[in-house]
């Protein structure tokens, strides 16, 4: 699905990614983890073509993403901070994205799912963080793309919505889609992900299942396993 070879990226003198090699096969849920500033978002943005790598190659569905924009038709992306043009109405935003990407009817179902009907005629600038995140989710899931990238999807969600989100993720997985998630909520990651990719100082430190990570770190549970990686490496 996604194949990354020798990816380097630095912002000015600040090296963020230094030689990432990563293969994400088709189907399943992958969690990209790492401490703050480890390069998770940079990695995801590189895949999306928002960040231009200094070196290395990224292939999505077998094709290089360099100087290409149409491959993004195959990706649904949920950005980390739901910042939308504030003087647009929710309805207009959805209509606009549909206009840009092609039509779909999924949006209506998702709107009902997240109970967004009362907000459709409100301006995005007047919405709370949680509601914005729900709109964000609608925009992401309304297209039926084989690759879904979710950057901190749980931010600001109430428990009911969180459950709905998890359900949503599972249904998409069941359809055979590939889902890439970053999150700080370890319980959420443990619950949904099949495989984790741990990034540390711009490199892939670990890739594999959660169980394999537990064995490797000799820790009984996931949260401690992560913590031990961090303490070992910073000690």
């Amino acid at each position: 699905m996604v194949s990354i070879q020798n990816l380097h990226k630095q912002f000015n003198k600040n090296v963020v990614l230094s030689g990432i090699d990563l293969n994400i096969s088709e189907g399943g849920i992958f969690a990209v983890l790492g401490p703050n500033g480890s390069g998770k978002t940079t990695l995801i943005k590189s895949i999306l073509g928002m960040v231009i790598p200094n070196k290395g190659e990224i292939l999505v569905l077998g094709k290089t993403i360099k100087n290409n924009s149409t491959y993004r038709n195959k990706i649904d992306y949920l950005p980390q901070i739901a910042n939308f043009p504030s003087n647009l109405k929710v309805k207009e935003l959805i209509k606009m994205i549909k206009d840009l990407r092609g039509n779909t009817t999924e949006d209506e179902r998702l709107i009902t799912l997240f109970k967004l009907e009362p907000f459709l005629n409100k301006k995005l600038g007047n919405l709370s963080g949680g509601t914005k995140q729900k709109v964000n989710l609608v925009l992401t899931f309304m297209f039926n793309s084989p690759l879904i990238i979710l950057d901190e999807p749980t931010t600001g969600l109430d428990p009911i919505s969180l459950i709905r989100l998890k359900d949503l993720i599972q249904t998409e997985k069941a359809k055979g889609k590939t889902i890439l998630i970053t999150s700080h909520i370890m319980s959420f990651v443990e619950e949904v992900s099949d495989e984790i990719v741990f990034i540390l100082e711009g490199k892939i430190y670990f890739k594999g299942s959660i169980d394999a990570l537990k064995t490797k770190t000799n820790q009984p549970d996931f949260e401690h396993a992560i913590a031990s990686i961090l303490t070992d490496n910073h000690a």
Partner: protein
Amino acid sequence: MLKILKYSFYDLMRSRWSYVYLAFYLMLGIVLLFLNNDLSKAVITLMNVIIVLVPLIGTIFGVMYYYNSKEFTELLLAQPLKRSSIFMGQYLGVALSLSMSLVLGLGIPFIFYGIFKSNAIWDFSLLLITGTFLTFIFTALAFNIALSNENRIKGFGYAILLWLFLAVIYDGLFLMSLLVFEDYPLDQFSLFASMLNPIDLSRTLILLKLDISALLGYTGAVFKQFFGTNFGLIISFLALSLWVILPVFRIVRKSKKKDF
């Protein structure tokens, strides 16, 4: 690109600033024409407004729009859209809506005044064309500044500086160098120097209409050829177009390399 253009344009058309801008020009037009009742004087005052204010508004507005629509841009970047079409669409959206406010704001009072029946129609059209060119140039320059500066305070600072430089300081330096080197033939230099500044260029273009009698008072052959024939008009328009094309070209290039 057209879709982005459409959304940027509508977005701006609904924003408060477009109305303020439009209202300002409407007021200006009405005050100049109906309170003063002197078309020639109105055209001269407008010229001053256009070569000073239009660049200022173009830069400020361009920078402001870029920073304010950062979220919108990021949203678009994740969509299957070419970067060049995203930025070109936004740029054209801003430049077009500003130009439209200018043309409508000044055009409506002038039409009511009866510009079509007056022989000032050419001077007036030239003013509007130059104003539109300046809007496109300075919005493009503003986008360049904003694309190169993540920090918006810095971006605004540079934008104001750019305007101040091109509108005032450049001419000061220009005048100094003409006075210092007055013993040398300077007509080619001075024409060249005014091509390098879009504000001077527009001013020259308007001078060709308003002050041709004074310009022909100077003896230099190059000046004479430039101002006395259509040569000057053509060269000025070409240079103005170049002033639009080059910054736009840089927007496209810069945007391709930028990280978000």
